[in-house]
């Protein structure tokens, strides 16, 4: 645990101490998804895009209905029991018509970060091999090939990607944004496991626009068979670790700052998959505990949550894998929506 004084105070001030309570309201937007693992909001239209991962496709969700946007991503699996089929993972828009997709179905070193130009609603679906750009992080010398590009986030100049190839390093990779809608120089950037000595960067976010300094915040998932070991780690853009906090959460899968300020600040939220006991999983607001640490306040219990994105209106969209009932034909994955005023609440403990 590293605690650094100056940046800590500035960052912790972004973790609002909240006593506000409200009834949370979780609404199902779309069900029948197959291990959805990524979600992004399209600029200008506000349409929600979901990585329907085990179906090997990215879909647009409009008026509660899904339409294929990109199909035929390769499939792989994650976990040892339970095992989950996965294909496309993290999603991120560079602009209205440019979507970046992190792959999860190929072998480490062969995995692709792909940039697609997408059409308007109603356009024919593209195939996964029709990307405008693709990038790999291949193994070389002592560097292992990278894969499972879980989550994507961006600043004005770069896209950041959490990876799960080299388990000795725990890389966050990044690519520079070129001309607003293209990427270049995709490279290993932050060795988070070396820095924190805890496994696997998964969730990632960048500083909100109301922050006094720029930073990248990574959710270090920890061991999936160990409870309470997820970390929240802040880095400066020059790779310096600013703050490393225990969260008490089991397995952070996503981080996001709210798009609307609540109180005086935009808030940081985390999803906890909680492999060991999925009943403990859910969405949590991460608040300053007043003692230099962080406290996770539960907003709602969720069944294997994987990704989240805030709309410009403050509405939060979350994907969950869910639990398929025995004999059910429909897959259990869902896209959920939590109203802006509900995101501010918390579950009574």
């Amino acid at each position, binding site marked *: 645990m590293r605690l650094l004084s100056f940046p800590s105070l500035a960052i912790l001030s972004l973790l609002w101490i909240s006593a506000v309570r409200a009834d949370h309201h979780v609404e199902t937007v779309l069900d029948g998804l197959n291990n959805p693992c990524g979600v992004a909001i399209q600029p200008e239209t506000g349409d929600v895009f979901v990585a329907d991962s085990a179906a090997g496709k990215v879909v647009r969700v409009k008026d509660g209905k899904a339409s294929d946007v990109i199909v035929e991503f390769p499939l792989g699996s994650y976990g*040892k029991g339970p095992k989950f089929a996965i294909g496309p993972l993290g999603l991120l828009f560079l602009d209205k018509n440019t979507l970046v997709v992190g792959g999860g179905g190929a072998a480490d070193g062969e995995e692709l970060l792909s940039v697609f130009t997408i059409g308007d609603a109603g356009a024919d679906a593209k195939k996964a091999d029709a990307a405008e750009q693709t990038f790999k992080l291949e193994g070389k010398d002592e560097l292992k090939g990278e894969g499972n590009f879980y989550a994507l986030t961006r600043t004005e100049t770069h896209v950041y990607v959490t990876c799960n190839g080299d388990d000795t390093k725990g890389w966050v990779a990044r690519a520079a944004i070129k001309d607003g809608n293209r990427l270049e120089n995709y490279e290993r950037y932050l060795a988070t496991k070396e820095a924190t000595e805890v*496994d696997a960067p998964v969730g990632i976010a960048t500083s909100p626009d109301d922050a006094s300094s720029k930073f990248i915040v990574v959710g270090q998932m920890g061991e999936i068979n*160990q409870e309470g070991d997820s970390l929240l780690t802040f880095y400066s853009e020059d790779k310096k670790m600013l703050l490393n906090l225990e969260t008490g959460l089991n397995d952070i899968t996503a981080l996001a700052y709210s798009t609307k300020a609540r109180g005086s600040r935009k808030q940081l939220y985390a999803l906890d998959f909680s492999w060991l006991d999925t009943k403990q999983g859910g969405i949590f607001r991460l608040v300053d505990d007043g003692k230099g640490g962080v406290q996770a306040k539960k907003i709602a219990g969720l069944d294997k949550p994987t990704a989240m994105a805030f709309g410009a209106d403050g509405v939060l969209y979350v994907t969950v894998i869910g639990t398929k009932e025995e004999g059910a034909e429909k897959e259990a994955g869902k896209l959920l929506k939590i109203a802006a005023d509900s995101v501010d609440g918390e579950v009574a403990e």
Partner: protein
Amino acid sequence: MFRNIVAMWIVLNAAQTARIHAQDAYELKIPLGLKAMKLPADNPLTAAKISLGKQLYFDKRLSIDNTVSCASCHDPQKGWSNGTPFATGVRNQVGGRSAPSIINAGYQTRATFWDGRAAQTKRRSNNALEAQALGPIQNPIEMDMKLETLIPKLNKIEGYRKQFQAVFGTDATADGVAKAIASFERTVLSGNAPYDRYKAGDKDALSEAAQRGRRVFFNKANCSACHIGGNFTDNGYHNIGIGTDQDKPDPGRVAVSKLEGDTAAFKTPTLREIARSAPYMHDGRFKTLEEVVNFYDKGGIKNPQLDEELYPLKLSDQDKADLVVFLKEGLSSPEYPDTKPPKLPE
């Protein structure tokens, strides 16, 4: 009458003074390379408590037939393990797993035992060692001592009863036994090894072979996927295949977590002082580190839950030799906690 009251006051005051003295905080000296240790809020370290815990740790009277102590299986002379594949308890009963080293056990704050069944009582309580301490005492194969027998037995030993009074303000209790033993175990530390000094900037601290081995460890051999951090463990549970080649495989962590992926998974042990704590693996099947390295080089033993970090490494003979040098030379501290048994109370 007055003299009796004064005498009683003096006795009570002396007891109170002794108790206050026994509460003096103990400052744990953390060696180079290890982090600050997280302690349970309800069990602060004191010198008197550690001393009491040390006596209990080495005392065979904690077993049903006065033949086995904690130190019998976690012996400072044998890397705080016992030098044999399996631990032997009372009546020469042999257990099914090797005795893990106590070295740096204080960093196992969330769960202990090979399968992690002794867990902290709530998040961030950091009291897994307290949860563990009474387990072997009661285990019928290890010390076979019921607590309802142990506690009166300890209270009949005046030296113990007085110490429990001074430390905890009560006669001996099961809670006190656990807290005292856990406190002593937190002082069994190994750091400031050549690796730590090398990492801190002393480039002569490791031989050339050990430096090469260090590079293999953290890269090509993938060891640091699990053996990471100051204590060289992720404190997680991994299936490397050991035991899956047996007719009745030890279920390992799955017995606790109920997650299929934890089948035959066991806790990652520290590698500190690894040269002293042979034999290796939870079933003690390997006598030498050379055998261990060869096992990992082959990618473990294939089975449905084999950890994804296990795969054929294709290490050269030089890589293997250097890796063993690093493990032996780099992680052995000149300040090894060579603790001697204390004088036990009567």
